[in-house]
C-alpha cells in the first residue's frame, strides 16, 4: 500500500511539474504591404499571399496585415487583424471576413509618397510581442527600397529575437537592372539589420511556391 501511495505521489509531483507556465504554441504572422508608388500594382499578388496564409493558419493563430506608407509605426496602418477563435467553424468565418476586408482595401488603395519599412517592422514586432504568440513571422511584401520622409528618425536597433522576417516579392527597380550591385547591397543591408536585431532573414521571390514554403 505504501508503495502504491509513493508511486501516486511521484506521478503527481511529475504531473504538477509538467503543468507549469504553458508555452504558447500559436503562430503569429504580421504582413507589411508596400503601398508606395508603382508597387501598388503588385497588390494583387499580396492578396493571393494573404489568402494562402489564411488557409494555412489555424485556430488560435494571429494574423495582421498592415500597409507601409509614410509613417508606418502606427496602429492606424494595420488594415486587418485577427486572432482566430478556438472553434474551427468560427475561425473559418473570421477568415472569410478577413479576406473581404483586404479585398475592400485593395480596391480603394492610394499610393503613399514615402516608404517607411523600419517603422512597419517596429510596429510588427510590438504587435506580435503583445500577442505573445509561439512563432512570430513578419512578412514584408515590398521592394525593400526605403524612402523616409525628412525628419523621420529610423536609425533604431530592431529587437527581433525570436522573429523570422521574410521578404516577399522583392522586385528589381530600374536602377537595380542597371547595376545589380544596388539590389544585392539593399538585400544584404536589410539582412544585416534584421540579423543584428536577433531575427532570422529569408527572401522568397518565387510566389508560386510560397504556400509550400511559408508557415511549414
Amino acid at each position, binding site marked *: 500500500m505504501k508503495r502504491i501511495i509513493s508511486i501516486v505521489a511521484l506521478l503527481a509531483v511529475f504531473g504538477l511539474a*509538467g*503543468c507549469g507556465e*504553458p508555452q504558447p*504554441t*500559436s503562430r503569429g504572422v504580421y504582413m507589411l504591404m508596400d503601398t508606395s508608388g508603382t508597387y501598388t500594382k503588385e497588390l494583387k499578388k499580396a492578396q493571393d499571399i494573404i*489568402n*494562402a496564409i*489564411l*488557409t494555412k493558419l*489555424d*485556430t*488560435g*493563430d494571429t494574423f495582421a496585415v498592415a500597409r507601409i506608407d509614410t509613417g508606418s509605426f502606427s496602429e492606424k496602418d494595420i488594415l486587418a487583424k485577427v486572432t*482566430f477563435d*478556438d*472553434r*474551427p*467553424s468560427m*475561425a*473559418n468565418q473570421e*477568415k*472569410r471576413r478577413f*479576406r473581404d476586408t483586404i479585398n475592400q482595401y485593395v480596391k480603394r488603395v492610394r499610393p503613399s509618397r514615402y516608404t517607411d519599412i523600419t517603422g512597419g517592422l517596429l510596429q510588427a514586432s510590438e504587435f506580435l510581442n503583445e500577442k505573445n504568440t509561439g512563432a512570430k513571422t513578419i512578412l514584408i511584401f515590398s521592394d525593400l527600397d526605403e524612402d523616409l520622409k525628412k525628419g523621420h528618425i529610423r536609425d533604431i536597433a530592431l529587437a527581433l529575437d525570436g522573429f523570422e522576417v521574410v521578404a516577399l516579392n522583392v522586385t528589381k527597380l530600374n536602377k537595380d537592372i542597371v547595376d545589380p550591385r544596388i539590389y544585392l547591397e539593399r538585400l544584404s543591408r536589410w539582412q544585416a539589420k534584421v540579423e543584428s536585431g536577433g531575427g532570422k532573414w529569408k527572401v522568397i521571390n518565387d510566389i508560386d511556391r510560397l504556400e509550400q514554403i511559408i508557415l511549414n
Partner: protein
Amino acid sequence: MPQLSALTSYQSIYVFIAIVVTIAALYFSRGPAHAAIRSLTRVIHSAMRLGAASLFHAEQKLAARNREVLLAAGREAAEQKIEREFDRMDKSVQRDLAECPTLQRRMNEQIARIEEDHQRSTDVPPSPPGWTNAVEAVANIPSKGDPMVANILDKIHESLVEAQNKARDAYRAVSKERHENLKKMRPNWRALQHSVDQMDKNVRSLLGRAKTIDRYVEDYEEIQKGSDRAIRNLHSSSLTNFFVSGLFCAIAIGGAFINFHLIARPMSEMVGGSNAIGAFRIADIAAMVIILVEISMGLFLMESLRFTRLFPVIGALPDKMRVRMLWFAFGLLLCLATIEAGLAFMREILMHDELATSAALRGQTSQVVFASDFLWITTVAQMGMGFILPFALTFVAIPLESFVAATRTVLGLMLQGFLKALAVCLRVLGSVIYQLGNVLVEIYDLIVFLPLWLERMIKANGGSARKGSKTATAREVF
C-alpha cells in the same frame, strides 16, 4: 645531412640501450610479473565465474518462480474448465435425470398397458357346447331308410351346422377384438421405444461429459504433479495466447486510432482547438479520454457479464449489484456511442465548411461542386462507425485479459533466457581471460627470451661443470 645521420645513430643507440634495460628489467621482474598476471587473470576469472554462478542461480530461481506461476495459472484455468464442465453436467443431470422418475412412471404405465392389451389378445375363444359329442354319436347311427330317423338326423344336422356357424362367428368376433387390442399396443410400443431412446441419448451425453471431465481432471493431475509434459503444454499455450491476443490487441489499437481521428477534429469545436497541455492539444486529449472511457466501460461490461476476470472485485459482487453495474456500464457506453455518432456528423459539417473556406480563399468558389446527392453516404458511414466502434472496442477486454496473463509468462521466459545467456557469456569471457593470462605469460617470456636462453645455457654449463668436478672427486676417492 651528416648531422641527421649522426642524430639517427644516437637515437638508435638510445633505443637499443632502452630495449636492453627494459628487457633486463623485465627479466629480473619475471617471477613477480608472472605471478601478477596470473593473479589478475585468476581474479577476473573467479569474479566472472562467481557472477555467472549468481546469474545461473538467479535464473534457476526465476525458472522455479515462472514454473510456479505457470502451474498456478494452469491450475486455475484447469479448475475453471472442470468447474464449467461440472456446471454443465449438473445442468444436464438436473434437466435430464430429473425427468427419470416421470420417464420411469411413464414407461411402467406403458408396459402395464401393453401387458393388459397382451392379456386381452391372448384370451381363447369359447369352446363348443358339450352336447355336440352326443349329437355326433346319434348322428352316426345308421338310418336304414327310416324316414323318421332321417328326419331327426337332418334336424340334428341343421342344429349342428347352426351351432357351428354361431361358434365361428363368435370366434371371429373375439379374434377381431384381439387384433384390435394388438393394434392398440403399437403406439405404446413406439412411445416406449422413444422413451428408451431418450434415456439412451441422455446417458450418452452424460458419458461424453464424464469423459471430458476425465480428460480435464487428468490434465489437472498433471499440473498438480508439475510434470514436464504439463509445463510444456502450458508454455506452448501461453506463447500462442500471447501472440494471438497481441494480434487482436493491435487490431483494437487500430480501431481506437480510427475512432480517435473520427472525433478529435469536432472535439476542438467543443473544447477549443488551440489550447494545449504540454505538446498535446486539449481537443486531442479529450478525444483520447472519451475513447479510454469507452474502453473502460467495455471492460466493466465484460467483467459484469463474467466474460473476463480482470477485476476480482466485480466478479465477487452479488448478482443483483453486478447486473446493476452491467446496465450502468451499458448505458454509459450507449451514451458515449451516441455522442460519437454526433461528433462524426459534426466532423463532416466542419470538413465541408473548411473546404468551402479554402476554396473561397483560393478563388475556386465556382469550381467547387459538392456531390451533395452522395454526401449522405459518407455522413451515414461516419456516424455508423462512430456508433459501432465503441461497442466493437468492448470486446478488446477478452484478448486483453489473455494478453495480460500471457505477458507475465512470456516476460518471465525472456528474462530467464537473458539471464542464462548473460551467465554463459560471463563464463566464456572468464575462461578466455584465464587463458589470456597464460598467453600473456608466454608473450612475456618471449620478450625476455635472450636472457632466459643465456640463463639456461649458464645453468646447463654450471650443471655439467659441477657434474664434472663431482666425477673427478669420486675418481680421487676411488
